[in-house]
């Protein structure tokens, strides 16, 4: 996989993960192009598109589009299921995930993705194992936190 993009129906990018080195300007250009292309498609159309020498595989979940660019020889259906598995992971972790969860906890969305896919390849396909890893990290987090005052929290001190 070369990159994964999550974006809203309005074309707002919510998460981007690049598995090939690209300059920022190029990333922006590609995101714009791909988002525009995918948003232009009608609901019943197929989930695969040829784009440059890659394949775009996308699926819409509620207001969010999940979109992957994979190499030419890659299996389209399994890529669709990678997307679905990621959605399931988000859903399990956040509990009925919605777009807002991903906006406000973007760093978590990235952590979960890293546990699931690394360097563009599926690393751990078991839902249970991925969530276990994330929850362990959360435990470490809670132990580490010390309570702080409300004022400090909202940055007024």
């Amino acid at each position, binding site marked *: 996989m070369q990159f994964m993009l999550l974006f809203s129906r309005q074309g707002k990018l919510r998460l981007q993960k690049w598995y090939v080195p690209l300059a920022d300007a190029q990333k922006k250009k590609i995101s714009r192009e791909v988002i525009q292309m995918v948003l232009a498609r009608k609901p019943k159309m197929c989930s695969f598109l040829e*784009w440059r020498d890659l394949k775009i595989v996308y699926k819409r979940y509620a207001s969010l589009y999940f979109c992957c660019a994979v190499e030419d020889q890659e299996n389209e259906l399994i890529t669709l299921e990678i997307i679905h598995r990621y959605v399931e992971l988000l859903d399990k972790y956040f509990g009925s995930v919605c777009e807002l969860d991903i906006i406000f906890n973007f760093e978590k969305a990235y952590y979960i993705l890293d546990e699931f896919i690394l360097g563009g390849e599926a690393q751990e396909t078991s839902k249970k194992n991925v969530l276990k890893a994330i929850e362990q990290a959360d435990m470490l987090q809670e132990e580490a936190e010390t309570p702080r005052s409300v004022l400090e929290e909202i940055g007024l001190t």
Partner: protein
Amino acid sequence: MPAVSKGDGMRGLAVFISDIRNCKSKEAEIKRINKELANIRSKFKGDKALDGYSKKKYVCKLLFIFLLGHDIDFGHMEAVNLLSSNKYTEKQIGYLFISVLVNSNSELIRLINNAIKNDLSSRNPTFMCLALHCIANVGSREMAEAFAGEIPRILVAGDTMDSVKQSAALCLLRLYKTSPDLVLMGEWTSRVVHLLNDQHMGVVTAAISLITCLSQKNPDEFKTCVSLAVSRLSRDYTYYFVPAPWLSCKLLRLLQCYPPPEDGAVKGRLVECLETILNKAQEPPKSKKVQHSNAKNAILFEAISLIIHYDSEPNLLVRACNQLGQFLQHRETNLRYLALESMCTLASSEFSHEAVKTHIETVINALKTERDVSVRQRAADLLYAMCDRSNAKQIVAEMLSYLETADYSIREEMVLKVAILAEKYAVDYSWYVDTILNLIRIAGDYVSEEVWYRVIQIVINRDDVQGYAAKTVFEALQAPACHENMVKVGGYILGEFGNLIAGDPRSSPLVQFNLLHSKFHLCSVPTRALLLSAYIKFINLFPETKSTIQEVLRSDSQIRNSDVELQQRAVEYLKLSSIASTDVLATVLEEMPPFPERESSILAKLKKKKGPGAVSVNELEEGKREGGELNGGGERGADNSNMAASNASTPSPSADLLGLRAGPPVNAAAPSAGSLLVDVFSEAGANDDGFLRDLEPPTESSDSLLAEGPGDSDSAPPSVVSEDPAAPLPESNELLNKFVCKNNGVLFENQLLQIGIKSEYRQNLGRMYLFYGNKTSVQFLTFTTTVTCPGELQSHILFMCTFKKLNVQAKPVEPLIEGGAQVQQVINIECLGDFCDAPLLNIKFRYGGALQNFSLKLPVTINKFFQPTEMASNDFFQRWKQLSQPQQEAQKIFKASHGMDTEVIKAKLLGLGMALLENVDPNPENFVCAGVIQTKAQQVGSLLRLEPNSQAQMYRLTVRSSKDTVSQRLCELLAEQF
């Protein structure tokens, strides 16, 4: 703000995100962000040391701002500080920031690598995974240098946790992809392969990706993975009935790196697995969820890919085809799309071609009724792939009718495909002519030059279709509004073969002329130029039209036309028609001779066009092979007698011209759009259209046009010619390309002889030393060499066009070379004008009684006469703009065939002979060069720009020069160098 906030919760961050979301306008958002950036900057700079939590919060805010699309140029140091924190969440945010905002500051990289090193050796699996994720996310060369040695050790160590192994495998894969030279598996190979046997499914899943990639590069070292993969596949898929779709797909993919297993038992097991997968596809679904069917079918499609890859099991291939046939009518669009795509490859297998053909009606229906253009595109591809002589007429007719409503994005490709099919499977050439003229009628705008060149090429080469072609274009031109391409074809064909229909009073010479001339004023300059040439040909064909045509040529709108080309043609043709005798006219304006056989330029174009939806090159090669067989061997119902008849009627071009089985194509590389002209009209040089150029006298000597006699032959003085020199060796183009950017080296070597070269060039002169080394212990007798200038320099049909471009004189060479000895030959070269073809060197000698006779191309290319020109940025761009006429520019986009190392590229460009200009192009990645080619007749200024795209491993090369032929030639030469 949503209630959910697991784990920690950085309230400040959440407040900030809410603020941003509440912004009513873009301006408000930017204002809020700038305020926040100022705040964070002051916190980072402030005297008060920040605690870990605040640092984490601010770094996270910066990350959020960056992800919104704003530039962030600070905070890296704070993020690096977080890396060394003992608190997991701080470390985690630090790593995330570093992964997303990679920075090339070397000091930072040192610090980051240090932190990673600490975490890797911490033996805390969570920390180790974080560090590995970071390496995999960044994947830079510096990281490869620092960790490529360490990670394999972690991967195979017995005490490494499973989760760490998984990360290590994929981390290594990423490093291997960016810096394959730094990742050396060596001693680890066998242990890595054995990860396929690991108990932990996740470890296997991750490891397969790594092994697959390594196998593609070093198949031999990893070939033990085949049997392991087969046993894993049968274990995981068939026996336990564990649906492990990711794993199964990856295993099937890995097997596609190898040929079918040689071991009978392994192969038997694999075939059994593949059969099971095909069987399962027939079973009723175990769940209604789309995920279930997707997972099942993902494996099925991967298995079919493997079956196609093996292409050796007829039974499986036919079963696969039947299965895909069912999907063609499935209600899921995705499955229909994939079935069409997959069938396309099945169509090229001899075992399943017939089975694919049975679905023709369904596919045609898909082309007509699918609502999604990408699915229609697949259907068109499949029709193209399944086409053979038996169904060509039906498929071409369907594609033509689809073309009328086809989406603009795919029309050009459709046109090319129709043109190729029509040509490839043409039994009767009137059908071919009809089809192409229909193409021009329906989609004239999308008919590229190659297509109409090709129809002319074929008509010229086959005299059985010329009369029909003339009649048909004449009729087509009757339409009140016809496409300009139609006018071009019409002009050319009537100019050559109008006499074949002139007997009919309805198409008498004057009627033909008036018809053509009625289109004249609506056409562009190049078309009008072509028509002028058709007119002069008319004067030869039909003397009765002479006065009418001279009248037209003499009119102010021609003879005083503001366009130089038109004016010159009008003047010259008028003069030619008034002073030349009919004999001279008949010689000058003789019918075009047959074109040499070569690969279809259209096919070359389609191959090159790797745009969306283009059929893969492989597939076309397949088609090509098949086409050759069909047209040549005529096994599948080819109309042999017809072909034989047409062969007999045209002496030189055999059916192969159409069968695309042309021997080694002269332009082995896919020619650029511009050089396709060379392809089609090769003998005429790459000027505008050769048809016209052939008529055109050399500009330098236009007044002596008729004085120049045919005896004025201009071949270079040959030394001795006894037997006919052999045609150049097939590899001679490649050898020539080797010397474009260098002057010295070994030109050629076989078991007997080695030829070394040293050469030097100054201005328009060159001297070349050839060293012939006898590698045997036996004498070479009657050793003779001959240097000739081929192609456009000699073999012109119209003698007036020939004028010398290159003067090559070879000093005689010793006729005897002792065993183990070397003799030297000096060749003097003078460049008179710009040229394309290299001189040929023919070598003959007797070795132990047998005559050796072969030819090579001497590496003399136009760039050898470059004088570098230094210039400043302003000058460069000013000159660049001055050379803005479309024909002055030649451009090529091509895939890198070597590494894209900047220094190597620079060295090659310098070797080319131009000046490499620094600090001219605003993009430092690009290269620009300038130089002047020195010929005796003129100087040709040339500018070059090379834009590498290391991401796509592609280059775009643009050459502009004051002569179009030079731009084309340089572009062709250089495209082979990188």
